[in-house]
């Protein structure tokens, strides 16, 4: 949190100057009046300048990021898994990455453990007041790699459907993974995709168009 102390003739002037220096709006800051000041006799004798402390409040996502980092670090400590956690945040989401060796246990079968970790982190971070924010958790570059794998899998399956004229059902996937497959094949002429079955066995089926 950025904060400055400003001395000026009046409280209002001091605040205005502080806002200018911090390049902030009035609602983005917290003001503490350290000294009301007084104009003194005829504005000369015994006059005292006003003094204010103006702090720029962190945006909500910064607080959520802090909370998320703290939560995941403590969770890993409790699981006795040595790993680093880094993150950044913006208006839309808090993005965390767990880094370290041998973290397969945190990913789990078909990324199930990772999904659970992300879900619990989101609940813990969004439980207390403030707006809900999306939490994205990754372990190493698991998600990026997985996405690449899914895209090439989708392409290969679609080519097979095209050449054989028969439908191909992919393995069961969660909603996010199915979406990647649907997206990948949107531009692929000659086939259509749809999801079939009930969670957690719901799968993408590719059909000749």
């Amino acid at each position, binding site marked *: 949190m950025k904060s400055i102390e400003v001395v000026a003739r009046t409280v209002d002037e001091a605040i205005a100057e502080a806002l200018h220096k911090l390049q902030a709006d009035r609602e983005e800051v917290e003001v503490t009046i350290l000294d009301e000041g007084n104009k003194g006799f005829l504005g000369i004798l015994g006059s005292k300048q006003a003094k204010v402390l103006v702090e720029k409040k962190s945006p909500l996502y910064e607080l959520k990021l802090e909370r998320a980092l703290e*939560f995941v670090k*403590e*969770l890993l400590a*409790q*699981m*006795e*898994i040595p790993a680093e956690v880094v993150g950044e945040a913006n208006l839309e989401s808090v993005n965390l990455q767990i880094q370290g060796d041998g973290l397969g*246990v*945190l990913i*789990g079968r078909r990324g*199930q*453990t990772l*999904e*659970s*970790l992300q*879900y*619990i982190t989101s*609940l*813990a971070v969004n*439980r207390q007041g403030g707006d809900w924010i999306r939490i994205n958790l990754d372990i190493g570059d698991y998600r990026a790699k997985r996405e690449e794998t899914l895209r090439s899998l989708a392409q290969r399956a679609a080519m097979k459907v095209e050449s054989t004229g028969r439908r191909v059902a992919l393995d069961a996937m969660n909603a996010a993974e199915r979406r990647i497959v649907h997206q990948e094949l949107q531009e692929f002429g000659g086939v259509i995709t749809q999801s079939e079955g009930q969670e957690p066995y719901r799968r993408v089926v590719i059909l000749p168009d």
Partner: protein
Amino acid sequence: MKNLVEFIGKSLADNPDQVLVEAEDRGHETVYTLYVAPEDMGRLIGKGGRIAKAIRTVVKASAIKSGVQVHVEIDERH
């Protein structure tokens, strides 16, 4: 393991001071019962048991290393 269950429980409950974990050895597995305030049951179980399932997945993953079988139950604290 007990601390992990307690930490997750306290992080999700509205009444963390009411969270209590009891461990019980049942032969080949250890059962951890997470007791929470009655009004927190929904927060710990979730729609269709989604939250409870996520908690179990994480606790089980943590148990893999130690090679023990664990089970997590969630119950109201009386």
